[in-house]
């Protein structure tokens, strides 16, 4: 027997800056237009930001702080899209108010904060999901399935590279300070990458790490060598270089490549044969009906929509979320462990004198000196 459709879910957004505008706005409008959810509160200390977002959600109430918001409303779901250094406090506020939480990545800037979030969610019996949207990519899901069936054999090696000149429309420099962002490109793009690599190959158990951050900066380039239970490989990330973005996995029985810019296809070849392109047809629920319709995400914005639906389904029906707080915490712990062993990255365009100077002023040197 089909259960009745769930009631329209109230959603609050904490942090109405670039993430809310650029990532969530269109997906939320889609949810709202389909009668699935309603944005009921916009929370941000900057009235210009809440006003800009309120144009799209005119029925939403506006609050300057989470405390004010939760004194007046109890949303089913709170999206935490504030600067990363505030994620923990804002998520804790929402959980304390009885709301489920979808927290933007990185989940927190320190593992201890993420631990508190996980504990609070468990005690409150609320969903704590982390916005690792790439887990919704059909290509990632299909890769996971291919690896599970042993399509590439054993002795797996991977290489992941992603980089472009930073162009996120930030409204403060919080993303570029270690105190407020926790780190640079590893914390930013690396959160996604370490999450889905962990899903594909198991959580990293070791490796090495090099980056280009000086004492007062955060890394714009980094390079990791990762050892995971089921594979090993390298990851290179950049905020200022146009890296040829690619993801390649090779094993004893075949190779697979993904273009991270294309979410619905992968290329596969077995035993040195010819490359074949496989279209990926993983679907996700597109509404809150217990046995509702499903859809195929075709773009990153699509995935944000399906991620929101999945988190709401977790809240309403108890279904699993793609990335919960425990998995988000594991990523933060991994990042911290790499930062602890950071060394200076060789940048080949620097002169020898510049590279030496960069090594001397690498942020790890300051940390060792302080220790």
């Amino acid at each position, binding site marked *: 027997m089909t259960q009745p459709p769930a009631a329209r879910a109230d959603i609050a957004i904490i942090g109405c800056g670039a993430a809310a505008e650029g990532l969530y706005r269109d997906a939320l409008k889609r949810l709202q237009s389909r009668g699935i959810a309603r944005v009921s509160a916009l929370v941000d200390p900057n009235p210009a930001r809440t006003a800009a977002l309120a144009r799209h959600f005119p029925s939403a109430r506006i609050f300057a702080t989470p405390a004010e918001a939760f004194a007046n409303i109890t949303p089913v779901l709170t999206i935490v899209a504030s600067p990363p250094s505030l994620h923990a406090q804002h998520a804790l506020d929402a959980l304390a108010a009885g709301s489920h939480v979808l927290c933007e990545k990185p989940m927190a800037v320190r593992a201890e904060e993420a631990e508190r979030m996980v504990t609070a969610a468990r005690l409150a019996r609320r969903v704590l999901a982390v916005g690792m949207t790439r887990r919704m990519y059909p290509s990632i899901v299909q890769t996971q399935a291919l690896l599970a069936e042993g399509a590439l054999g054993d002795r797996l090696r991977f290489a992941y590279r992603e980089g472009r000149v930073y162009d996120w429309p930030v409204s403060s*420099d919080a993303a570029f300070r270690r105190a407020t962002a926790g780190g640079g490109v590893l914390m930013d793009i690396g959160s996604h990458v370490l999450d889905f690599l962990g899903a594909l190959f198991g959580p990293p158990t070791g490796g090495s790490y090099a980056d280009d951050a000086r004492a007062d900066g955060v890394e714009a380039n980094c390079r990791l060598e990762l050892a995971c239970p089921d594979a090993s490989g390298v990851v290179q990330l950049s905020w200022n270089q146009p890296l040829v973005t690619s993801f*390649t996995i090779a094993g004893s029985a075949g190779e697979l490549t993904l273009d991270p810019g294309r979410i619905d296809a992968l290329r596969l070849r077995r035993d040195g044969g010819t490359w074949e392109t496989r279209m990926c047809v993983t679907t996700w629920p597109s509404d809150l009906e217990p046995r509702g319709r499903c859809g195929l995400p075709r773009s990153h914005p699509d995935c944000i929509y399906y991620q929101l639906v999945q988190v709401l389904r977790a809240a309403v029906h108890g279904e699993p979320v793609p990335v919960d707080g425990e998995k988000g915490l594991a990523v933060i712990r991994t990042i911290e462990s790499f930062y602890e062993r950071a060394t200076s*990255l060789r940048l*080949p365009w620097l002169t020898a004198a510049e590279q*030496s100077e960069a090594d001397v002023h690498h942020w790890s040197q300051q940390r060792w000196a302080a220790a």
Partner: protein
Amino acid sequence: MGGGVAVLGAGGFVGSRLLERAVHAGRRDIVPVVRGLRSVGRAANLGVSYRLGDASRPDSLKPALAGCDAVVNLTTGDPGDIVRTTESIYSAALAAGARVLIHLSSASVYGPVERPNLPDDAPPWLGHWMPYARQKGRAENFLRQRMADPRLAIVVLRPGLIWGPGSPWVLGPATDLLRGAAYLVDSGNGICNLMYVDNLLRSIDAVLAHAAAPSGFYHVGDDETRTWSDYYIALAAGLGADIAKIHAVPGDRFRAGPRDRIEELKALPMYRQLKDRLPIAARAAMKLRVVRALGGDRAAVTANGNAVVTRELWHLQTTRYPLPTGKFRATFGHRNTVSFRSGVAASLAWLRFIGVCEPETPGKAAQADSGALAVGRGA
């Protein structure tokens, strides 16, 4: 170099290298000025302080230039903004009491260099077909009219193609060479007027170091005269690309291709209005369709491609003469330090770093990575 040196366009290719070079040299006088905080991300590793200033608005720039006695204009962007931005920067520099304004123009203001010993102060060709060159020429004329004012020295640098790590003039040819889409017009005999980015930055340093920089126009360029064939063959050799696959294009006249028509469409105001109105999701979907329709997925990079001859590159490759740079050397006592050979080596190292050549197959990855880490640790 007494006061600060404001660098406008510090988030761009040349500006970010200027900043990086200055930080590694221990300089404290550089004041990077950016329009938006997103530009800070490009140099987030350096941890330097920025000032915010919109180069198109003097009122916004004036506080950003406070305390600076030199202003370096490296801004790029939409051709339609070049003149307005130049006017604004000039006004703000004057108001801030700066002693010198260094304005980065381009040798493209002439079109191809069609005669030897081209004077440094030759007027720009305002009928240029390329909006960028046309507007750069107009900006130069604005500054030319103000060079007699003793309050602010105006030094206009006219480099050719700025190349080196990070340059589109390295990435573009390298990508084309690897995918079999590179071409040489008239057997590559045209002069490739190159300016290695660090040589350009040394030129800027030379102007800044001059106690009384004379206003004027100055050609700047590398020491060696190279042809396009020299340049492509040097890159191809380092990339392992087959030079036999470089397409030969006749130099008698230019024949417009699809890319030029697309660029013409993109230059229309209607295109920009439409682009601004479309939601991000719709734009992403449309872009994906166009990329796929043009066969531009990543897999195609290593396949043989057909050469798409662009008007800009065709004209550049038919340049007949090198830019004479004697005036700048004589005035500022400048010497380049990077040769063509070492510039190519650095560019190839950068291409390897970003993954254009020697693609990082999983098998090779471990070797490459451990090498990089070992150097980083040991240095």
